[in-house]
């Protein structure tokens, strides 16, 4: 085959420089804000605005204490943990049997149900916020964590079911028939045959939704409301931004505090998390 003409050589050189530069510029644009806000967490307003990039004069934790006290971040983190864990559990409780059934279902009913779930992504989130509020009110669960715990799994159903169904479909019929011949009930078949093979899928669903549930803001804001004893960390954080003059040091300290749990999980489970998100999109 003929060699590439000279003109494109220049383009190629530019190309490699460009993508490299883009990459490192973006990396810098990622690191800089983080540096700024970590450093600002230890300063007061004057320090933040006078010399934004300078290291703080002292590393005392005043801003953190202030932020935690003022926005009641302690209960807020606990609430985030409670709602996230409960919602994750409920998601699995609903999705596993459903994917089990769908993976083994024959006939049109199964296909229709699966199709219904896959339409989930078309739902304009936030547009249906007000009707969801009405639902909560009708159920008498307005301004409770409970409603959010009930709602979140529903939003996670489509993707969870698609991922888990695909896993369950890979199980060869022979394995299952062997188990049923041994006299196992459907329930036991699910537990002993399907579940172990689905562990990667389950992990994916858990990681994906952990992020999604933990970071949920708008619904938590409206549905749980102002009760400091119930609100999650995402709702509590913006309360540090005040009409009467924000203390930016405390705001940044509070932000840093809310990011720690997620960052911890990410550092430990980095590869799994990335894989989860990727397969989430691929399955979709």
């Amino acid at each position, binding site marked *: 085959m003929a060699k590439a003409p000279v003109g494109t050589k220049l383009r190629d050189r530019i190309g490699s420089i460009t993508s490299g530069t883009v990459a490192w510029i973006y990396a810098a644009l990622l690191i800089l804000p983080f540096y700024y806000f970590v450093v600002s967490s230890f300063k007061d307003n004057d320090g933040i605005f006078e010399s934004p990039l300078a290291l703080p004069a002292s590393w005392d934790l005043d801003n953190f204490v202030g932020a935690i006290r003022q926005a009641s971040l302690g209960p807020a983190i606990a609430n985030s943990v409670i709602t996230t864990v409960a919602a994750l559990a409920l998601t699995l409780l609903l999705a596993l049997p*459903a994917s089990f059934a769908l993976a083994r279902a024959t006939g049109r009913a199964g296909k229709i149900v699966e*199709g219904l779930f896959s339409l989930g992504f078309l739902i304009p989130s936030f547009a249906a916020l007000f009707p969801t509020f009405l639902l909560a009110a009708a159920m008498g669960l307005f301004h409770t964590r409970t409603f959010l715990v009930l709602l979140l799994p529903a939003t996670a159903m489509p993707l969870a079911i698609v991922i888990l169904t695909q896993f369950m479909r890979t199980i060869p019929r022979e394995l299952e028939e062997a188990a049923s011949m041994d006299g196992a009930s459907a329930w036991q078949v699910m537990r002993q045959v399907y579940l172990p093979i689905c562990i990667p899928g389950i992990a994916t669903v858990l990681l994906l939704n952990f992020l999604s549930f933990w970071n949920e803001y708008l619904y938590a804001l*409206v549905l749980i409301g102002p009760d400091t004893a119930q609100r999650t960390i995402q709702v509590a954080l913006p309360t540090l931004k005040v009409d009467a003059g924000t203390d930016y040091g405390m705001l940044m300290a*509070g932000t840093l505090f809310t990011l720690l749990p997620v960052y911890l999980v990410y550092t430990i489970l980095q590869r799994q998390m990335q894989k989860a998100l990727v397969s989430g999109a691929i399955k979709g």
Partner: protein
Amino acid sequence: MAVLVEEPPVRSAGTPPRPSRRRPAVGTARGSFPTFAIPALAWYGVFMIGPVVAMIVIAFLSWPGMLVTPTFAGLDNFRVLFSDETFWAAVRNSTVQIVIGLPIMIVLAFLLAFHVVQKPRGHRVLRYLLFIPALISAPATAMMFYAMLNPDGLVNGVLETLGIGGKAWLADPATALGALIVVDLWAGIGYSAVLIASRLDGVDGEVVQAARMDGAGSWRLAWGVYWPIARDFIGVVAMLQFLSMLFSSAQNVLLLTQGGPGTATTTLSYLVYQKAFVDTDLGYSQAVGVVLFVFGLVGMFIIRRVLRKTH
């Protein structure tokens, strides 16, 4: 940003269609109706489908205040909508946000992914970093940018040391929307790049080798080899981000500018929130919701066409 979305499942070649008549659905759990799926279905129906149906119903009601009783209004809400300049401002803003933001995001994400996949020096660090914005919730990102974009904040501080004047980014109607697009890009490029990189990882090494031996440099490699192969997947990523930008902009706007100054940053999704929870014009709000829904469908269709599989 991280929105749970998916494409309708591709009919997998692995499950051969089974004529339902042959096997009677009796006794065994392998019945033709997925009973175990009923709880999930019920949940989904009540919490997701229900509110959407309600949204459509309310769009036809006149409900001008939380404490006021709603009455039927036919197409009134839509009529008011289409003659309201705030609505058209929102349409304009959402369109600008997506038409400018989405292509930039996808192109830059692709370049980033391409670079990382070449495994240059520091690519592991890069992969670690790229993903971090995806972890951060909307409130945390917004608070960070709120401090940075403050008229006396980091961005202006840096610009001033470089000799360029700073601006009130969130305050100036000319730059407010741009600032929001930047926030979207900051958060979304990394995530998109990680997704695309995973797809590019799967490109057959031999194809790449062949192209290189052919004398292809980076540019041709990226656009001539990787892009066509990954195009379909990139289309999926584009749809994901499109939906995210369209539907989730309400959060960022609420946290940063509340639609202002004037209507400079009122996007369609924020308009739904604002009309419901600030102006409490509930019928109008849900009517905008319906429009948003349609917008979403149209946009998905367009992206699908543009980034279809070519081979």
